[in-house]
C-alpha cells in the first residue's frame, strides 16, 4: 500500500548485493571469483602446505556453522521478545527489555564471551559450545531486538488497529498481521546480523571452542606456517560470507512479492 520501506543498518554485517546497486553487484562477483580462484590455485600449485591446511579445517568449519546457526536461532527468538518488550506499554516488561539492550550493547562481545564462559562456569556447568552459543545469542539478541523493534514500528499503527478491531488479541495481531509485514523490513538487517554473527563466531575460539579459526591456529602453531594458514582461513571465511550475502539478497527479492 504505502511503499515507505525503511532500511535499517545496525552493525557491520556484509554488503548484501541488491539488484539496484550495480557496483556492489559486480563487486560481489569480483570478490567471489577472486577468492575462489586464489584458493583453488593455491591448492593446485602448492598443495604443501595449503592442501594440508585445508584438510585440517573441516571439523572447525562445521563448529563455526553450528555455533552460527544455533546462535542465530536463539538470537532471533530473544530479539523478537526483546523488540516486542521494547515497545510494550507494560512498564516492567519494557524496563527489562530496555535494560537488557543497554547492558549488552555496553559490553564488548569478547568480554561477554569471557564473562559468560568463565564467570558463569563457576555456577552452571555447560559445555563449551553451549556456553559459546549462549553468549553469542545473548549478545546478538539485543541487536536483533533493535532490528525487530524498528521492523515492528515500521508497520503503520492502522494495521494493529484493524486487527484489534476485528478481535485479534495482541499476540495474534503480532503473528498474523504485524510480523508477516515487518519481516520485509527486518530481513535485510537480520541477514546482515547473521553474517556479522558468523564472523564474530571466530571470537569463540578464545573459549577453546574448536572452530574454524582455532583449528587454523592449532595447525599454524605446530607447523609455523602462520602466513599460509591465515591466508586459507581468511579465504574460507570470505567465501562463506560471500555465499551467505548472496543467499540473503536472493531471499530479499523473494519476500518482496506483494509490494
Amino acid at each position, binding site marked *: 500500500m504505502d511503499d515507505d520501506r525503511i532500511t535499517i543498518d545496525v552493525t557491520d554485517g556484509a554488503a548484501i548485493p541488491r539488484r539496484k546497486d550495480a557496483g556492489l553487484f559486480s563487486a560481489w562477483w569480483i570478490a567471489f571469483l577472486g577468492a575462489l580462484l586464489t584458493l583453488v590455485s593455491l591448492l593446485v600449485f602448492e598443495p604443501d602446505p595449503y592442501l594440508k591446511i585445508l584438510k585440517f579445517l573441516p571439523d572447525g568449519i562445521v563448529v563455526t556453522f553450528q555455533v552460527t546457526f544455533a546462535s542465530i536461532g536463539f538470537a532471533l527468538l530473544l530479539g523478537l521478545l526483546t523488540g516486542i518488550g521494547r515497545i510494550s506499554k507494560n512498564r516492567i516488561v519494557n524496563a527489562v527489555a530496555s535494560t537488557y539492550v543497554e547492558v549488552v550493547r555496553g559490553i564488548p562481545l569478547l568480554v561477554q564471551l569471557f564473562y559468560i564462559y568463565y564467570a558463569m562456569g563457576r555456577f552452571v*556447568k555447560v559445555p*563449551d559450545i553451549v556456553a559459546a552459543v549462549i553468549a553469542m545469542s545473548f549478545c546478538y539478541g539485543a541487536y536483533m531486538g533493535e532490528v525487530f523493534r524498528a521492523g515492528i514500528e515500521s508497520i503503520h499503527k492502522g494495521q494493529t488497529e484493524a486487527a484489534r478491531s476485528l478481535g485479534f488479541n495482541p499476540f495474534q495481531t503480532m503473528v498474523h498481521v504485524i510480523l508477516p509485514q515487518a519481516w520485509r523490513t527486518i530481513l535485510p538487517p537480520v541477514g546482515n546480523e547473521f553474517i556479522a554473527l558468523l564472523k564474530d563466531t571466530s571470537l569463540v575460539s578464545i573459549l*577453546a571452542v574448536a572452530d574454524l579459526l582455532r583449528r587454523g591456529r592449532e595447525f599454524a*602453531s*605446530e607447523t*609455523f606456517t*602462520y602466513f599460509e594458514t591465515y591466508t586459507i582461513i581468511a579465504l574460507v571465511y570470505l567465501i562463506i560470507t560471500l555465499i551467505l550475502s548472496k543467499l540473503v539478497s536472493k531471499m530479499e527479492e523473494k519476500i518482496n512479492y506483494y509490494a
Partner: protein
Amino acid sequence: MKKVVLCLLTVLMLSSSAWAKKIVIAQDATWPPMEFMNENKEIVGFDSDYMKAAAKEAGYEVELRNVAWDGIFAGLDAGQYDAVCSSVTITDERKKAMDFSEPYFKVRQALVVPKESAAKTLEDMKGKTIGGQIGTTGYFVTKKVEGVNAKSYDEIGLAMEDLFNGRIDGVVCDDPVAAQYALQKAEYAAKLKIAAVLDTGDEYYGVAVKKGNKEVLDLINKGIAEVQSKGLDKEMRAKWMGQ
C-alpha cells in the same frame, strides 16, 4: 643549566645503549612460575631471572616483552624481537623453523586432574577431554593419544580454570607449571592434583632465535654457560620452584 644536564643525560643514555648490545626477549607471561606477570605488571619468573642473569654475565642488555603464545614464533620470524625465552621445549619440528640455544632447563609433562580421579597415565584418560595450551608440547603429546579428546587453549590458566569448573577432565603441561597450579594456588589445590609426571620423556627448554641469528645466539649461549658454571640457576630454581 637544567637543559644542559638533560642533554648530558640523554647523550649518556644513548651512548651506553650503543656499546651494550640490547636483546629484546619475548615471553608469554601466563606460565607461572616460569614467566608471569606480578602485581607490578612486571614479567617475573624463572626464565625472566635467567635471562637477566645471563645478560649480566655476558655483558649485554635485555628487555623482556610480553607476547601471546599463539603467534610468538611468528613474531620472532618477523623480527619483532630477537629471541623467545618462554619455556620453549627444543623439538625437531621447531628446530626446522628456528635456532635454539643450549638447553637451560629440563622438564617433563605432568597430568593435572581433579582430586577424585584415579587416572595415572594418559591412557587412563581415554574418552575424556584433556586441555593444554595451543602449540605446546603438552598439547602435542595429548593429541597423539588415541581416544583422548585434546582441547587447545590460548593460555594454560584458562585450561586450569575449565578443569576447575569441571568442563574438562585433565590438563597436561610442563611439570613446574602443573605444580604451580595444582599445589600452590589454594583454590585449585583444594580440588586438583597432579596425577602423574608422564613418561613422555625429558624435555629441554632452549632460547629460540630467528634462524641464522648467530650474533644473538652466541651472546645468549655465553650467558647461559656463565650462569650454569656459577651455579646461579640452582638459586633461581630454589627461589621459583622451592627445590
